[in-house]
Structures are given as C-alpha cells and as structure tokens.
C-alpha cells in the first residue's frame, strides 16, 4: 500500500519536474521572441546609421580661382547686349574652364589628356554654379583671383571620408587620384565640413549636390493639406457616429465601410486618386494638393476610429449633467464632450499623420515620383515627398546615393519618432482617467 503511494508520489514529482521544465521553456521562447524583434530594430537602425552618417559631411577642395575673362569667353560688349535681351548673366560663360585652369595650376606636373581629364574629375560638376553666383554677386571679381573651397566630386568625397577611418581603397578612384588627394590632404587643401548642401538644396543628378529640402518642403505642403482635410472631417464623422447617428442600417453600413477602408491597401487609394482627381477632374499631376487629398482619404479611417474611442471614453454623467442644466445636444457635444475627448483624438491624429508622412505607394500613382530640382512654393507646384525621394535615391546607380538615402531615412525617422514621442507625451499628460 505504502509502496504504491510512494510510486505515485514519485510519478507526480517526476511529471512536475517535466511540467516546470516545459513552463520555463515556454517562457524562454516568449522572451526570445521579444528579444528577436528588438534585435531587428537594433540591426535596422545601426545599419542605416552606419551607412548614412557620412552624408552629413561633405568634402571641399581649396583652389585658387582666377576669373579670367579670356577663359570665361566673356566679351563685355556681347555680355551686356545679352543681358539686355533678358538672358541670364554669364549664361554662356565657361566657368568649368576656370576650375580646370585652377586645377592645372595646382598640379603643374600633370600632363597628358587622359590624366588631365582625371584631374578635372576631382571637383564637382556643380562647383561652376557657385563661381557664377559669386561673379554675379560681385562683378568686380572679373580678371581677379580668389581662394575658394569648392565641392569635391562624389567619388572623391567617398574616398576621402572613408580613408580616414580604415583606409579602404575604392575601385572608383584611380591611383593617380589617390595620390592627388593625399597630396592635397598633406597641405590641408582638402577637408570635410558639415554638409549644408544636403539640407538646403533640392534633388540633383550629382550625389554631392543633392539635398532633401525640396522633398521636405513637398512633404510639409502635402501634410498641411492632409491635416486640414482629415482632422475636421474625421472628428466630425466620429462625432456624428457616436453622438447623433440613429442605430439603423445606414449607420451600420457606414461603420462597416470605415472599418474596411482602414484595411484597404494604400496603393488602392493611389488608384482612386489617379482615376478621380487626375483623369476625371484634370487636376495637375505631382502636386502636393493631390497628394494631400489622397493621403487624407487614406488616414481618415484611422482618425475616425481613434476619435470614436476618445468620444466613447467620456462618461455619460458629463452629458447628463450638461443636458440637466439646459444645454442642447449640440451644445453638449461641442462644449463638453469634444474638449474632454480632444487629447485622445489628437493622439490618433498625430499617429495618422505619421502614417501619412511615411507613405509612398499611393503617391507613386499620382506622379509624385518626378525628378524635381526646384523647391516647391505652392500647393500646385510639382513636388515630391521624403519617402518618395528615399525610394528614388535608393534606385540610383551611384554608390554615393546610398549614403544620401540612409541620411534621408534618418531625417525622416527623426520626424516620425518626434511625432510618436509627442503623441505619447500627450496621452500621458492630458488623458484623464474617469
């Protein structure tokens, strides 16, 4: 008898050990799932930061430039005549020639056509625009010399920035070019500075001259349209559905619709925008106005759903008290319910805006993928937005664009994290628990 009980006891203990072991195993499994997702974030961010941190610096080369009228090919008489005709000042002038002669002067011993062409590749194609700007600002510089820091070519930039770190030899830089760069760096005639170009310019074919300001302004304009459409419309719709709608089939239908729209792929909204706004109403392509309209339709369900949650959370006692002292239903809503629900509503709006700010696919449909150099100034200008700019750069062949892409991602993520942070703060600070 005793023996039997002992055996049973033993069996139970053994099974307990087994069960506890499986308990621990399960727990560890859950923990590792969480660690895995955190790991993904860490890998993603370190990858992007390590790829993009170089883009915040830009390499400049110091050169003594002589604004030689002969090289420029500027005949004062012809020039004046051209300017009277409304042509851009120095439109035909050969500023590239100035840079070439300055480079020849710096590296006197370089001869031969091929070598010289390599030499000319040290300085960016866009540097001549800088010279033109300087000469227009100060016409007295003609036939005089000045020492300038000019933007280096993207391959030089890449090589110089990375040679500091580990001395990686790039296959896009020849040995001659390496020698020249080392020569320049020994005399301090090449240096990296903060990349102001990246934050003050629009897109460009040359990686070293490409900036995100155009895309950022485009994003801002688009978001402005999205916000001013989706916020009032979303809140109004939520108010109607929560406070005024009679419980009938129509309201049910609207509800089902909203829940479905929240899960419709974003690209479908792009198709809608293309078919309705562009083909039917003939609104201009690539305009922030259309982008904003499409994104507003896309974020509307998110805002409606979170606004409804906020309105629902306001306790009925508030409504009853207001009605008790004689407020009309509309006054109850606008004087009491809405202000109390506002923190939750705003949280939802910020999350919806963050979603819209990172959206790419529907904007591709309505033509916001064009290569646009100018910074947009109005809602009907051609523009692109930050995520689309990232997509465009990621598609580019030049390696220097990888760096730019990562940097643009960092800037975009900064905005998004800021918005998320704001919504968390808002929720913590203002939300009331009833």
């Amino acid at each position, binding site marked *: 008898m005793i023996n039997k009980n002992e055996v049973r006891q033993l069996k139970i203990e053994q099974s307990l050990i087994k069960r506890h072991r499986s308990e621990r195993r399960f727990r560890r499994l859950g923990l590792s799932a969480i660690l895995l997702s955190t790991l993904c974030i860490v890998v993603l961010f370190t990858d992007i930061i390590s790829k993009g941190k170089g883009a915040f610096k830009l390499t400049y080369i110091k050169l003594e430039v002589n604004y030689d009228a002969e090289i420029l090919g500027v005949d004062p008489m012809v020039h004046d005549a051209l300017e009277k005709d409304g042509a851009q000042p120095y439109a035909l002038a050969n500023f590239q020639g100035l840079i070439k002669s300055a480079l020849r002067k710096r590296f006197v011993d370089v001869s031969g056509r091929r070598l010289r062409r390599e030499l000319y590749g040290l300085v960016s194609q866009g540097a001549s625009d800088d010279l033109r700007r300087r000469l227009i600002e100060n016409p007295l510089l003609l036939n005089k010399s000045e020492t300038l820091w000019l933007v280096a070519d993207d391959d030089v930039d890449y090589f110089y920035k990375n040679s500091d770190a580990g001395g990686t030899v790039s296959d896009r830089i020849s040995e001659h070019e390496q020698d020249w760069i080392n020569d320049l760096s020994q005399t301090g005639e090449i240096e990296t500075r903060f990349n102001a170009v990246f934050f003050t310019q629009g897109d460009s074919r040359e990686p070293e001259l490409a900036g995100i300001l155009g895309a950022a302004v485009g994003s801002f304009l688009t978001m402005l349209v999205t916000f001013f459409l989706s916020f009032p419309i979303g809140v109004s719709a939520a108010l109607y559905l929560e406070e005024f709608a009679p419980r009938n089939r129509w309201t049910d239908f609207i509800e089902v619709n909203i829940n479905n729209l929240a899960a419709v792929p974003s690209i479908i909204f792009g198709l809608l925008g293309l078919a309705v706004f562009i083909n039917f109403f003939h609104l201009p392509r690539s305009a922030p106005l259309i982008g904003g309209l499409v994104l507003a339709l896309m974020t509307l369900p998110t805002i409606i759903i979170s606004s409804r949650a906020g309105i629902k959370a306001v306790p009925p006692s508030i409504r009853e008290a207001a009605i008790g002292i004689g407020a009309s239903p509309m006054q109850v809503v606008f004087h009491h319910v809405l202000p109390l629900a506002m923190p939750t509503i705003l949280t939802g709006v910020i999350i919806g805006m963050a979603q819209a700010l990172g959206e790419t*696919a529907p904007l591709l449909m309505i033509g916001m993928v064009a290569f646009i150099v100018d910074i947009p100034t109005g809602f009907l200008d051609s523009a692109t937005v930050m995520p689309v700019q990232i997509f465009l750069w990621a598609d580019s062949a030049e390696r220097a664009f990888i760096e730019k892409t990562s940097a643009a991602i960092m800037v975009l993520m900064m905005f998004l994290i800021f918005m998320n942070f704001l919504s968390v703060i808002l929720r913590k600070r203002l939300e009331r628990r009833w």
Partner: protein
Amino acid sequence: MPGSILVITLIIMSMIAYSISYHRSLKIGESLGGIRQLQSIPFYYGMRAVIWCGLPSIALLLLWFIFDDYLINTLILADLPDNVRGDKTVAKNILLSKVRYLADGSLPWSTGDEIYVSVVERFKALQQLSNYMEATVILVVAALGLCWSALAITPTLKARQEVEKFYKGVLFSCAAIAILTTAGILFSVAFEALRFFQSVPIEEFLGGTQWSPQVAIRADQVGSSGSFGFIPLLTGTLLISFIAMVVAVPVGLLSAIYLSEYANAEVRGIVKPTLELLAGIPTVVYGFFAALTVAPWIREVCTVLGLEASSESALSAGLVMGIMIIPFVSSLTDDVIRAVPKSLREGSLGVGATQSETIKQVILPAALPGIVGGMLLAVSRAIGETMIVMMAAGLAANLTINPMESVTTITVQIVTLLVGDQEFDSPKTLAAFALGLALFLITLLLNVIALKVVRKYQEQYD
C-alpha cells in the same frame, strides 16, 4: 478677380454678417427687456448669418470652378472660324489647350498660328467675361444673404435650431465621405477594369500563366498583344506573404503572449513602445533595408551553402515584410488575449495547471477566433504591401514557389504599369486597374471575414 481674393472677400463678408446680426439681435433683445426675451442667444443669430452669407456663395464658387472651363470650351468649339476648323490635323482637345497656352502666354506665337488670333481673342474675352460675372454674381448672392439674415431676425426666430440642424447636416456628410470613398474606389477601379476586360477576356486574365504586359506600339509587330495572365502575380504575392507570415506569426504571437501573461509593468512599458516604433517605420525604409542589407546577406549565405539565389529574391522581401508585420500581429493578439476573462485564467490556475498550460490549453483556445481574425488582417496587409516588394522582389513574373528566385507581385505590377508616361486607352495601363480591382476584392474579402470573426468573438465575452 482671382479666386483667392474672392474667397478672402467672402470670408470678410461672413465676418461682417456675423457681427451685424449679432448686434442687431442684441439690440432687439434689449428693446424687449434683455436677451432673455430672444428665442436663441445672439451667437446663433450671428452663425445663422454666416451660413446664409457664406454657404450659397461658396457653393456657387465651386460650381463656377467646375463648369467654367467646360462652358468656355464648348462655346469656343461651337463657333470656330472656318480656317481653324479646316485645320483637321489637330484634335479638338489639343486645339483647346493650344488656344489656352497661347492666351496665357506660356506658348510663344510661331508662324502659322495667325489663324488662331481671332480664337484666342475670343477666348480671352470669354474668360474675362466669366471672371467678371463670377465675381458679381457671387458677391451679390453673399450680400443678399447678409441683408436677409440680418432683416429676418425676430424674437421668435428659431436661430439655434436652424444652426444646429445645419451642423448636424455637416457632421452627417463628413461621415458619409467614408461611403463615398468606398464607392469611388469601387467605381473608378471597376470602370477601368471593365474597359480592360473588353480587350482582354476575363478567362485569359484569371487563368493565364504568362504575364508580359509590354504592348508593341504598332499593331503588326510580333507579340503585339502582350499577355495578361494573373496566375504568376498571384503565386508571387502569396509566396511572399507566406514567407512573411512564417516569420511574423510565431514571433508576434509569442511576444504578445509573453507581454500579456508574463511580463511585469516595467518590461511592458519598455517593449510596447519599441514594438510601436517598429510599426511606425515607413515601408520604404524596410524596402531599402531589404534590398541593400538583407538581400546581399542572403545571397552570401546561399553561396556558402552552395545554393543559387538571384539578387532579388522572394525570401529577402518576405523576411523583411515579416519583420514589418510582427508588431501588427502582436498588438492584435495582445488585445485579444487581454479580452479573455480573468475567471477562465483563475479557474485553470486554481485546478493546478501551470501558467504555460493555462495559456496553451485555456487562453489560446478561447482567444483563437480573435487570433485567426488578426492573422487574416495581417495577411491582407502583406498582400497589399507595395514598397518592400517593389524594392526587393523584382519585376520578373516567374511562376515559381522557390523562395530564392525573383518573383513579382500584384502591387509591384500596378506601380510599374502606371508610373511614367501612360495612355489611358492602352490595355497596359488598364491592366493596372484590373489588378487593382483584384487586389481590392481579395483584401476586402479577407477584411470582411476577419472583422466578422473578431466582432463575433468580442460579443461572446462582453
């Protein structure tokens, strides 16, 4: 008068209308012994004036904006001078835009354009007339509204009721926009898709195994028709979604279980925002990560293992898409698990089950419908995802289930067919709308089922 000035004038007039009616109602109230004697407080008389002054005029402005060009175009076309009408080389819409550009100076006059002089003059005159008429009519309507609303104020006028009725109408129309959007999607996409099915039979679209939408420019070229078989796109989409779900479901599910059942408040407070951060990363960033980091890495691993992998593989897109969906799965599952009543949990623990046994044998079965619903939503999301596959999966429509090969998806094809120059009559462009319709219907079906399941489950425990 340009539109913006007109709008600003209208806003100012509405403000004036508010102020006039407000003060007038105050005055009327005072003469009767205080505003108590009025039916509504002065604010509502003011708002009523704003509605009467602003609403009709804004509506007119919109109508004018929509029909203005159309009217001018028909007038111009109806009365073309013979020498222009004889110029059969230009189509009507090209002629109209030419006239338009000549009139506003964005197109310089060139030789041979002399015949257009009279048309352009007439166009300019009509445009000016339209502008003048627009400004006059709208301002007169606004002024009438202003005067009438001020004069109509009587102590018994139910201003509040009228204004609130208007508010309610506005709120309702905002809610109705959701229906309009759905209808807009359905009609615009279905309409173009139907046009597509006129040139390509629907059986060929649904049953074809060849997708090469390149349509030749001339009809007599070889392969001029292109082939529009939907099957390779569907298998590609499903393959990538399947890989994504293989990654996302276990990881998302287990993290949700850990967060809701094991983790203390502190861990929750850190991990939840981190997962939300993962959810907030734009898809284009994931795409970049997939194309530039994960894809080369996979290829390296494959060469080490002696496998062959193309540079754009379904695997890299699927893996990264899985990472993207993890927070989606985990937050949906978390909600569902937390909705399981405490009594079930306590009952199970009370009879001696360990925590993991409780989870596996009580909570998960109870939460299963909700979890399945969440999974369906996640699948619908994976199917509709565009940027990751666009950047990492490639364009070749291979009919394969080998994850190392490059496949293409419905969304990628929609984008590639529509980006760039497009003619709205070619089957190539219309095919994008047919694909859009298919995508919409697939995701709609998944969503409807998922929402039904989730809702039914919620009712069960409420």
